[in-house]
């Protein structure tokens, strides 16, 4: 029996060796002529095929299939990890479009053609879950860390996902630029949980930046605005997620501080079919305003309809998570009059370079969502950092991103502070009028 077993073992080993012998032949040629996969081809296709057709993606590269067996020091890869399957798809489609738009503008080249830029659109959701999946985000981060060509990681969309990938990428020394995470604890000491954000940076050196202002500013701005329109009693709701609950907590704290009475606090189930019972409860508490911390995808439209349907006539307010066209369509008539806060300016309020970008984006892809401009700006800052060092070196690019000062992007002129936060602290307040968000004011 032993003999037979060893035959088996030999057989398997033999097959392994054969594979090994086969590998170099296939591998080296594959790297130069890129015959084997569409993935390797993507740079050229993505680069030249200017996205003339709206809302489409160039065939994205796929790290898992790409036999990029070293040798090609010319390629710098930028990856993004966003939930591309499930209900956030509407937003992430536009972020990916914006990133690709920026790359196409650079003609997929940096440093006068010294490096070719490749972009990969990774999905951190699974079909089975229909939303971002912790294991998938971890494996995206690990794949990116393992791929020596990857120099910038744009992501994540969900703050919860960022908590998972930051430590992984931190150890790989790979810089992260998030276009959408607003949970304060990711960057700001003392604003989140105990030990945040240091606990996300095992090397001790931060690698995480975000081009979007955090919620501690936004929640407070919302409460201050509420006071300015003479709100005295508020009912606070959240969607039980990291982002929504976080911003509702900030709102609650600020409101209490400045003397607005909080008459109730509830967390909604984002999957419930309706919220009539909650609406009756809210009406019984008789607030002047209902504040909802959460995202459209957690059924904000239904929530609005039910609260209005129950006869609530006070003000309603929400954060940037609902400042999107999807919300307007989901809530229909019930959205009318809703106040929303938003970090920075809405796309159509941007000036200078921002206004130009807005015009070119809408011409090419159609509707702009709140985070679209941040997607563009994330790619913008990444390319600028690469240009400034012209090295294929993660550490250098990481430092260059953190050193971003007085950057003239589409959002205005801004810098990163030592925590990786943007210096843009302007918060805009808009109100839904008719079928659009109407800009009201900027608060600092």
């Amino acid at each position, binding site marked *: 029996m032993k003999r037979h077993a060893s035959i088996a073992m030999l057989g398997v080993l033999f097959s392994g060796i054969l594979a090994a012998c086969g590998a170099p032949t296939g591998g080296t040629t594959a790297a130069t002529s890129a015959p084997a996969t569409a993935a390797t081809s993507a740079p050229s296709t993505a680069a030249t095929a200017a996205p003339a057709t709206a809302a489409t993606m160039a065939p994205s590269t796929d790290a898992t299939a790409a036999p990029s067996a070293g040798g090609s020091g010319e390629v710098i890869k930028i990856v993004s990890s966003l939930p591309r399957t499930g209900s956030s798809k509407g937003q992430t489609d536009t972020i990916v479009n914006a990133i690709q738009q920026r790359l196409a503008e650079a003609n997929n080249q940096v440093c006068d053609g010294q490096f070719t830029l490749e972009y990969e659109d990774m999905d951190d959701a699974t079909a089975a879950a229909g939303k971002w999946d912790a294991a998938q985000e971890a494996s995206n981060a690990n794949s990116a860390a393992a791929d020596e060509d990857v120099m910038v990681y744009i992501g994540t969309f969900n703050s919860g996902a960022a908590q998972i990938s930051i430590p992984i990428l931190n150890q790989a020394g790979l810089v992260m630029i998030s276009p959408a995470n607003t949970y304060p604890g990711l960057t700001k000491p003392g604003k989140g949980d105990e030990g945040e954000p240091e606990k996300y940076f095992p090397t001790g050196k931060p690698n995480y930046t975000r081009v979007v202002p955090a919620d501690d500013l936004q929640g407070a701005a919302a409460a201050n605005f509420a006071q300015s329109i003479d709100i005295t009693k508020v009912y606070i709701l959240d969607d039980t997620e990291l982002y929504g609950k976080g911003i509702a907590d900030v709102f609650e704290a600020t409101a209490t501080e400045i003397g607005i009475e909080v008459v109730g606090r509830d967390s909604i*189930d984002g999957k419930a079919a309706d919220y009539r019972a909650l609406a009756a409860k809210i009406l019984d508490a008789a607030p002047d305003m209902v504040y909802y911390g959460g995202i459209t995808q957690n059924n904000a439209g239904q929530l609005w309809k039910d609260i209005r349907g129950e006869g609530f006539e006070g003000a309603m307010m929400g954060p940037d998570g609902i400042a999107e066209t999807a919300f307007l*369509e989901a809530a229909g008539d019930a959205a009318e009059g809703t106040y929303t806060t938003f970090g920075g300016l809405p796309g159509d309020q941007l000036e200078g370079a921002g206004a130009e970008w807005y015009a070119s984006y809408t011409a090419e892809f159609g509707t702009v969502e709140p985070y679209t401009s941040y997607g563009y700006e994330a790619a913008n800052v990444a390319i600028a950092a690469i240009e400034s060092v012209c090295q294929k070196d993660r550490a250098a690019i990481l430092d260059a991103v953190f050193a971003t000062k007085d950057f003239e992007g589409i959002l205005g002129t801004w810098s990163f502070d030592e925590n990786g936060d943007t210096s843009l602290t302007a918060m805009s307040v808009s109100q839904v009028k008719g079928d659009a968000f109407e800009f009201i004011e900027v608060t600092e």
Partner: protein
Amino acid sequence: MASEAVGSNFQKRVIPWRTIARVALVVFFVLFLAVPLFNILVQMVTNPQLLLRQLLIGLTNGAYIALIALGYTLVYGIVELINFAHGEVYMIGAFFSLTLVGLFSLSDETPYATRIPLMLLILVLTMLATALLNAAIERFAYRRLRNAPRLAPLISAIGVSFVLQNVGLLWGYLRFPAFNGVMGSNAVAPKSYPQLIPNDNLLAPLEGVFGEAFRLRFTTKDLVVIVVSATLLIALYTFVQRTKIGKAMRATAQDRDASALMGIDVNRTITLAFLLGGALAGAAGMLVGMYNGTVVYTLGFTAGLRSFTAAVLGGIGNILGAMLGGLLIGLISALSDQYISTEWTNAVVFGILVIILVLRPNGLLGEDVQQKA
């Protein structure tokens, strides 16, 4: 109570687990639940108007949960399959009816004289479409698995529900001018159903009876939901109990082989059950779409789960049970939202479900039928 349980143990020195468990339960109840429950009672008594309002909400929500649950229970009764795709058929029904609403350009401004007949027409068309869809699903995804292991069609059903969910997502791209913009501009975003049934308070004349803060509401929408649900429930019940085909369905449910021997066309009966189930799902889709006002491709899964729970609670396979289960779940959710906390509502619903099923292992109205292999 304690001595009774001990007395029933004939063997000596057996640890009286049952007694210990009961005593522990009572202690737990007194220590942890008595005070909160008393508080809730006080709240209920001091604000009867709110309690009444919540009961009305629970009743209406229960009515539509029951309507979806019916389809589950009907199919389960005959093929013993937890049809996970049922919730998705309901979702497709909502999308289909919304598309027709757009096609006929119905809105809250259409005069009633044309609106009501058109709505009825849409209802019929939707029911027809979902009935055919459901029967087609049965034909392609379940029929071949009828003699497979009991759980095989369950997986097939889960697969179908993934497929239909994706169909719902793609449906959002049907932004043809003919549909008058009902699909909005964003495929993934929830779609708004026009308010075809008015949301006016029928109880408004009662204002004054309850003092100044009058908040009791019962709208035309609520009424329509209850009336339509009740009508369909009664119609289905009568159909199954009184007609010859209904009898054939019940016979097939009891024993497929025996009923085949008695000359019942089993295939046809099963197809009929799926047709009926699909039609009910379509009706529910349109009704709930109009009632809640939102249609989104993720709608089906939760609704399916809720109504499946309702069906089981009432005794799966039992039409009256599904109705009772639906009402109960509607009421429990509304009361829990109000008096406990919205974030715990799902846990409360399932907690009560567990307790009820432990006390009545075959559901509220279920009969003790030995499970078929």
